[in-house]
């Protein structure tokens, strides 16, 4: 555990710019592809693939962003499917539906704010590990 931490705390200018871009790109793509949850996931995958040979710091943050996007994608896709059923199908608006959509909205807003915060911090060369996604990324990214 200790060896990657040293690498993560000592990125150079070039690495911190690329790592910051992974979060910044996610923020911009949210604005462009808001109705379609898959757009953000595809963009994160493309960015990850483009940076797969980069340094440990860049790969770590690209992976953290990708892992977060995967979970967000499934949550949002379920929300879109449910909403489509309500609008175009015969499903009814239930308390469960409203609770789910409100939770989803809160989750997306939190993810959006976290992405902006991570973009700013990583640009300064500081390592940002999100709750749940950080330890998961630690397991996925090998030094």
């Amino acid at each position, binding site marked *: 555990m200790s060896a990657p931490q040293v690498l993560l705390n000592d990125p*150079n*200018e*070039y690495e911190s*710019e*690329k790592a910051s*871009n*992974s979060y*910044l*790109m996610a923020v*911009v*793509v949210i604005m*462009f*592809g808001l109705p379609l949850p898959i*757009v953000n996931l*595809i*963009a994160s995958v*493309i*960015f990850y693939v*483009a940076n797969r040979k980069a340094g440990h710091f860049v790969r770590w943050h690209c992976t953290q962003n990708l892992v977060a996007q995967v979970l967000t994608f499934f949550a949002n896709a379920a929300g879109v499917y449910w909403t489509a059923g309500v609008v175009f199908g015969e499903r009814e608006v239930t308390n469960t539906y409203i609770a789910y959509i409100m939770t989803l909205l809160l989750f997306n807003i939190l993810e959006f704010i976290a992405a902006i915060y991570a973009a700013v911090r990583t640009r300064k060369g500081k390592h940002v590990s999100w709750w749940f996604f950080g330890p998961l990324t630690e397991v996925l990214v090998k030094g």
Partner: protein
Amino acid sequence: MDQQKVDLFLMTSGKYFEGYQLASIKEKLTKLDDAKLLQLQSVSLRDPIIMLIVSLIGGHFGIDRFVLGEVGLGVAKLLTCGGFGIWTIVDWFLIMGRTREINMQNFQQAMY
């Protein structure tokens, strides 16, 4: 190559490369024979800022990738209308780094 010429090259062309590459460029230029100076000056280096502007304006048609010399990716981007817009946005954040990488490749090709 004498130190003055090396410093002049780094001052004028430093922005075309990543910061961490400058030390190795300086080392290579110092060892370089003066006869290769003309060859070095003919290296095609692209400005990352200009490439970002090209990507913002013509990214949907893959113009940025064509300009960088990546014709295959350019055609793919052109045919998919910039990867249905997604690839275009991702490239806004990748193109500057990619430009610097290609500049370094061109520089190294000119050296050997």
